[in-house]
């Protein structure tokens, strides 16, 4: 009896022990590895990320990582978030014109010419640039799209941008309605932006003499925008979109760091003044895009015409061609963009000191008349079949290279000493980007 009981007890204990072992083994097989945990966390999210490196010849360079994440919501809507950070450094034109003699300028943070580390000298014939330019920016945005019905969607969202001298916050809302079997979509969007500027050294008194350092305080500006769009499926392989938009900005629209050379009749600089721009700007633009697809390639052509109350008119045309390989897991995408703009009414590369002066003047080359060309190429490779457990359908690695050149043509010839100098050197830049989507 005793022995039997003991055997039964032993058997019970053995069974208990083996059960414990079994459950431990099961638990171990259920224990997820780190990659699996990561995969599960990102399960419903589509991530796109890229790092862009931008380099201007002799000027600014910037590095800009960007990430965006999108997720479908349970009612078939979408949430998307994005975040970008950029860090700039290098030389930035300060608005003054080249001169036959060397010129010395003070950095924006300077309060006077005395402190040597806050000044910089530009050689004869060279375009005056501030070599200590540096800026860091963090920006992000979020949008939530939800269905009002099967054919109507609304989106609300906002974005912000933060630099040490500039903060911006924007809210936007839009509504899209489709009909004709979703072949036609009309959309209406509105946005409202508020910006707060705290220029380094303070906001200068417009058109004041630069050497007086009359600077102080902070400024603000705001903008409202309206966009009306129509998207139409033309055929199985052709899609068209047409938009018109209207924006209005008001408040402090000056660049607080830009100056203008004041020259005498012989072309020599006698002083420099801070720029001034109108305190409102209304801009209208029309945009047309067409995309056509074939079995292994597609082309996207877009055109934009813009006009504003500052007198700037611009035309933009961009073509992108995509070629897929036979397996459709790699592509090559060359692109070309052509851009032309006219000068703002108050664009003055310099001011002649005895001439009558309007209330606004700016020598910022971004407001000059120029044309620009961008040549780009992008290569992408889909990784779903190559990375096994990790990859999903949208997994892709891509590289992009672009060359951008701005040419200022027919700029007014400088009088006297300015003639013969290269007053409008333009801009050459390259962009190199690599990206990863998951």
């Amino acid at each position, binding site marked *: 009896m005793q022995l039997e009981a003991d055997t039964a007890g032993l058997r019970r204990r053995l069974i208990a022990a083996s059960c414990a072992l079994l459950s431990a083994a099961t638990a171990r097989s259920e224990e997820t590895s780190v990659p699996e945990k990561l995969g599960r966390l990102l399960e419903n999210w589509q991530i796109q990320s890229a790092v862009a490196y931008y380099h201007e010849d002799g000027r600014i360079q910037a590095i800009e990582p960007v990430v965006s994440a999108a997720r*479908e*919501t*349970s*009612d*078939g809507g979408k949430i998307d978030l994005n975040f970008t950070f950029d860090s700039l450094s290098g030389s930035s034109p300060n608005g003054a014109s080249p001169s036959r003699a060397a010129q010395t300028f003070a950095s924006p943070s300077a309060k006077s010419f005395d402190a040597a580390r806050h000044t910089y000298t530009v050689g004869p014939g060279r375009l005056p640039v501030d070599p200590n330019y540096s800026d860091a920016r963090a920006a992000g945005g979020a949008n939530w799209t939800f269905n009002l019905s*099967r054919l109507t969607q609304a989106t609300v969202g906002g974005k912000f941008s933060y630099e040490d001298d500039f903060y911006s916050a924007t809210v936007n809302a839009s509504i899209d309605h489709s009909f004709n*079997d*979703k072949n036609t979509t009309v959309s209406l969007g509105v946005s409202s932006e508020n910006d707060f500027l705290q220029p380094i050294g303070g906001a200068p008194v417009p058109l004041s003499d630069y050497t007086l350092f009359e600077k102080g305080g902070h400024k603000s500006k705001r903008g409202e925008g309206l966009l009306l769009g129509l998207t139409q499926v033309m055929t199985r392989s052709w899609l068209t979109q047409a938009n018109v938009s209207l924006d209005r900005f008001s408040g402090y629209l000056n660049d607080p760091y830009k100056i203008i050379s004041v020259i005498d009749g012989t072309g020599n600089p006698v002083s420099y003044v801070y720029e001034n721009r109108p305190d409102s700007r209304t801009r209208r633009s029309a945009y047309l895009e067409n995309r056509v697809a074939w079995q292994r390639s597609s082309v996207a052509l877009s055109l934009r015409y813009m006009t504003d109350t500052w007198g700037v008119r611009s035309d933009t045309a961009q073509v992108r061609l995509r070629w897929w390989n036979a397996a459709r897991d790699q592509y090559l995408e060359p692109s070309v963009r052509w851009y032309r703009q006219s000068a703002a009414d108050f664009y003055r590369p310099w001011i002649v000191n005895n001439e009558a002066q309007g209330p606004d003047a700016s020598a910022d080359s971004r407001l000059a008349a120029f044309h620009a060309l961008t040549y780009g190429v992008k290569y992408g490779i889909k990784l779903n079949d190559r990375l096994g457990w990790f990859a999903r359908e949208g997994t892709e690695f891509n590289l992009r290279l672009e060359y951008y050149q701005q040419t200022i043509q027919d700029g007014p010839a400088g009088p006297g000493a300015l003639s013969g100098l290269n007053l409008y050197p333009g801009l050459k830049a390259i962009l190199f980007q690599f990206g990863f989507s998951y």
Partner: protein
Amino acid sequence: MRSENGLLDAAKRRCDQPPDGQDAVGSAPVRIMRNLGLLCVFAGAFGLTAHGAEISDLGALHGRVVYLDFWASWCAPCRQSFPWMEGMKKQYEAKGLTIIAVNLDQERAEADAFLRRFHPGFEIKFDPQGLWAARFGVQGMPTSILIDRHGVARFTHIGFRPNDGSTYERQLEQLLAEP
């Protein structure tokens, strides 16, 4: 041995009577389907091809609840509905559910590549010309039509959103519960 035409006539007679428990007009999808004369189209000449063979034996489907789904490999919500349809098949096949997924890819190779990846257990039919999609009035991708045991289309759904699965499942349970 009933002829196909005989089946069609018998089905048409059944279809012309309103389903029990519903008013003469019926729910919106039923109304639409009836106006388009499609209730009987389904009941009668189910002429889709499955690997080249015509399906004309209605007897196999009559008495079962049919979930007729129109999908394509390029449609993301369609891809999301496949695991759900697999789940429905496992759970309700024994209770009388048949799932038929009609593929509308123009390129058969695309559909095959998709099926090689997902290995669905339910029946797949191919309609590359979209003839059946047109006759059933498909308005969006995916479209699913829930047909009761008498061959009457009772619910039509356009789209498959993440929280639609539970709604459709309740409707399937309702139809499966009916005699």
